[in-house]
């Protein structure tokens, strides 16, 4: 499954000039009692968990459990309390569709931060991921451990 990176226009940190920035993102569908939502998620090898905004859990009627462990720590040192739930996630391309069970975490992110992150637990652990920087494309190959949902 191939996913072209998303193009953003950002200001370069050094010069401030507008530049093209590509991020490895894909559309991830999350299911809950209230239906399903499609959200653009950043595929992040630096994230231990797969995390969505708490707003999405509320809208989908997903009952979450407050995490008993420590808050997650973001790059820069911010601590983010999380809750979690067992849900189904889905990836879809023109060629194939994959739907699987996953533990997903929910958090109230800061005012200007990504709101959906596909990290290791629940996502990257189930794929061989190739980040092709030359053509700005992510390729995912599911492995045998992907807990697919039967049709």
């Amino acid at each position, binding site marked *: 499954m191939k996913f072209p990176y998303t*193009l953003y*226009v950002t200001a370069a940190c050094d010069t401030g000039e507008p530049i093209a920035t590509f991020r490895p993102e894909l559309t991830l569908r999350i299911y809950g009692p209230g239906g399903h939502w499609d959200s653009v998620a950043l595929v992040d090898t630096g994230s231990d968990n797969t995390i969505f905004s708490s707003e999405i859990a509320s*809208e989908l009627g997903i009952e979450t459990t407050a995490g008993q462990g420590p808050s997650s720590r973001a790059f820069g040192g911010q601590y983010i309390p999380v809750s979690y739930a067992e849900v189904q996630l889905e990836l879809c391309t023109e060629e194939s569709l994959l739907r699987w069970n996953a533990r997903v975490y929910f958090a109230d992110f800061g005012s200007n931060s990504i709101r959906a992150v596909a990290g290791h637990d629940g996502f990257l652990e189930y794929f061989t991921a190739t980040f092709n920087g030359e053509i700005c494309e992510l390729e995912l190959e599911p492995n045998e451990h992907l807990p697919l949902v039967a049709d």
Partner: protein
Amino acid sequence: MRMTVEEAKRRFPNHPGPVPSEYDGQWIAWNRTRTQILAHGYELKAVRAAAAKAGGDEPIMQFVCSRPFIGPHAAGQG
């Protein structure tokens, strides 16, 4: 490889975006092919409802973070 936006569009014409930087800090609702923005705003639920009114029953929701990005937080907040 630093590129201007025009170079990036020319080199990668089929990649999604560009995500409009003027919507930084807002939710946007894309159509199914992520080629058209159906609605945008600060409230997730309202943006999705506006997208449905615009004909997008199943929009793809995205929160826009168009600042330089390091980890889950944008650089230079505030």
